[in-house]
């Protein structure tokens, strides 16, 4: 992979991090990592929270580009990208529409399925439907249709927050309540056993390319919030322990998902590789985590690339779009 040069030392980048989502802490860590990586390659970067001081600051002293390291709704539901479009400030990553679609897991899954990209069977239900139709009846139908085990997760959100694997029918009601504490709509998905993998995708000017696949092996079997962000609780294998043919299929599937959702610059596609070697897409992140234990930086390192240079290149591309 050839990296085009970044566009000089006088480029000023604003890294947006923090926000009011449940992933504020993760976002602050991602933001600092992005800032350090940019500074290491000589790009001037400052970090800001997305609060009431943001728009006046953008107006008074607009940066050359923005990198959105906000996780959760503000960073990923497309709305902030829409505001940046209004302000005429270029940003790294996909546009507002694509972001909104990728952020909402049921919408993203529908688009993937329409594009012929495999994703586990699912049903998405707002909590009102349970109260109107009777929770027991609805849950029974879900179990009849999708079988056990199931994966329950908020329709919107990341970092494994509010997600639970349900192996026994009696665990389904508490899992639903736990999920609805995070979001008003739950995604109940058929649980596919297999290898958890993540494919980071970057487009440095020659079309989207897949970085080495990262395989995720949580020590306690569950890739929950603690397993994601406590160093030592998860082993990441990069490249993933897959045969060449399977690995190629996983990367192709991830690239197809990136394209099907109309994404741009960078993304991370999370997949499960079933025991028969077939990959299925679980989710797509338009603002991938950049912390010490996040998957995209691991993939960048495994590819022998430099995160700062990649980000600087993406900044140049964003500026060129303006």
């Amino acid at each position, binding site marked *: 992979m050839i990296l085009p040069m970044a566009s000089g030392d006088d480029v000023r980048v604003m890294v947006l991090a923090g926000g009011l989502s449940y992933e504020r802490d993760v976002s602050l860590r991602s933001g600092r990592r992005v800032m350090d990586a940019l500074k290491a390659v000589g790009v001037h970067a400052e970090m800001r929270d997305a609060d009431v001081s943001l728009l006046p600051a953008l107006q008074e002293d607009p940066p050359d580009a923005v990198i959105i390291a906000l996780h959760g709704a503000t960073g990923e539901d497309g709305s902030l990208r829409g505001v940046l479009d209004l302000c005429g400030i270029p940003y790294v990553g996909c546009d507002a529409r694509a972001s909104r679609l990728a952020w909402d897991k049921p919408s993203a899954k529908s688009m993937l399925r329409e594009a012929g990209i495999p994703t586990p069977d699912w049903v998405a239900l707002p909590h009102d439907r349970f109260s109107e139709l009777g929770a027991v009846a609805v849950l029974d139908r879900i179990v009849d249709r999708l079988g056990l085990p199931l994966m329950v997760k908020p329709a919107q959100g990341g970092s494994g927050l509010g997600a639970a694997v349900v192996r026994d029918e009696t665990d389904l009601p508490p899992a639903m309540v736990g999920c609805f504490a995070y979001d008003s709509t739950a995604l109940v998905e058929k649980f596919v056993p297999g290898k958890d993998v993540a494919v980071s995708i970057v487009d440095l000017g020659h079309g989207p390319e897949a970085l080495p696949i990262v395989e995720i092996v949580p020590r306690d079997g569950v890739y929950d919030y603690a397993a994601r962000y406590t*160093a030592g609780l998860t082993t990441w294998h990069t490249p993933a322990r897959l045969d060449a043919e399977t690995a190629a299929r996983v990367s192709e599937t991830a690239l197809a998902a990136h394209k099907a959702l109309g994404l741009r610059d960078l993304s991370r596609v999370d997949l499960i590789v079933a025991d028969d070697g077939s990959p299925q897409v679980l989710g797509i992140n338009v603002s991938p985590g950049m912390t010490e234990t996040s998957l995209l930086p691991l993939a960048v390192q495994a590819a022998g690339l430099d995160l700062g240079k990649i980000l600087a290149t993406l900044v140049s591309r964003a500026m060129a779009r303006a």
Partner: protein
Amino acid sequence: MTGTTQDDYTDVYARRVRGMTTSEIRALFAVASRPEVVSLAGGSPYIAALPLDAVGEMLGRLGSEHGAVSLQYGIGQGTVELRERICEVMALSGINGASPDDVVVTVGGQQAIDLLARLFLDPGDVVLAEGPSYVGALGVFQAAQAQVHHVPMDEDGLIPEALEEAIATIARSGRRAKFLYTIPTFQNPAGVTLSEERRERVLDICERAGLLVVEDDPYGMLSFEGDAPLPLRARRREGVFYVSTFSKTFAPGLRVGWILAPHAVREKLVMMSEANVLCPSAFAQAAVTQYLTNMPWREQVKSYREIYRERRDALLGALHDRMPAGTSWTHPTGGLFVWATLPEGLDSKAMMPRAIAARVAYVPGTGFYADGTGTGNMRLNFSFSSPERLREGVRRLAGVMEQELAMRAVFGAAASQPHHRRRGTAAADAPGPDLA
């Protein structure tokens, strides 16, 4: 490339750090620090009420006029001047005749608890503590690889019969209980106070069982309704280790606390403290000494009492007006906290994300138990926020609870089954000290 855990030290860690992980709840507290959120989760005193200009001038002079001493190393036990002032402070609480020789200055009350744990606890020893108890002490006991056995309380504090039962249970199991860790006055987190009558009984029970008492008294001066009961240490000289701090009466940022210890162990405490921190901050000690000597600190404490009483009234009034049926809470007569018990089936930890979305924060009860219980409780702080903010916080919290109750009703009793979640330490469910 083989696998990486991003932590090359996994095989080297001491046993005592096992189970220390980041947590979802800690992630949620990160949002609670934003001004949009009404935080009832912190434990911060209302520092803005201090005469900050005068304090600032005093601190400046400490550097410019006394820097040769205040910026130098000091002795491990703490300065004589401060220890004399500390004895005067304790006399106001009813602990008379304490000698400055028996006082060890520490880096906040937290180091005092840590020193006592190092002094007395071997791995596997048992500590008795109120249930719920101070999260910082639970962390110390965990680091000492001790087991915490919680003793229940009611509106009058620790229940003596339950204490006797706990002592007997531990003895039957062949384990050794070393001390009772107690916050008898305006307890954190429960807000209750051990009654006069029970103080004598608790001391008698501990004496009979050969159990030491660690009395943690950070809030005793913050009484809203007359004077607080006499500390346990004012009633017994032997077997009681008295711990207190200037964090609530002056400034937590200075990190100055102390232990009043029986003479025999004072020297060991000093040597351990030297091994631990060398000496407490000379600058912070000088600041506290100056504050106690030259500034109207008693009036300041009175003013805190009035501010906090008004805030407690605002919080209790709002709880009375807004909380859903089935909720109960304590009525503290001093200190910083109210302990609420939720309606049947509600889980304060599971409800946290909903609360954060509604821009209100509390500490789930699980942050105050070493054994993972406390899901049906929450701690609410009233010292930091204005009465208006407290009322708004309770309004938001009541809405969150109503939604959660509705959700539980939809999914039935089965929804309240324990959810298979990772259980970390109590500290994983409580905020860091910086959250106001």
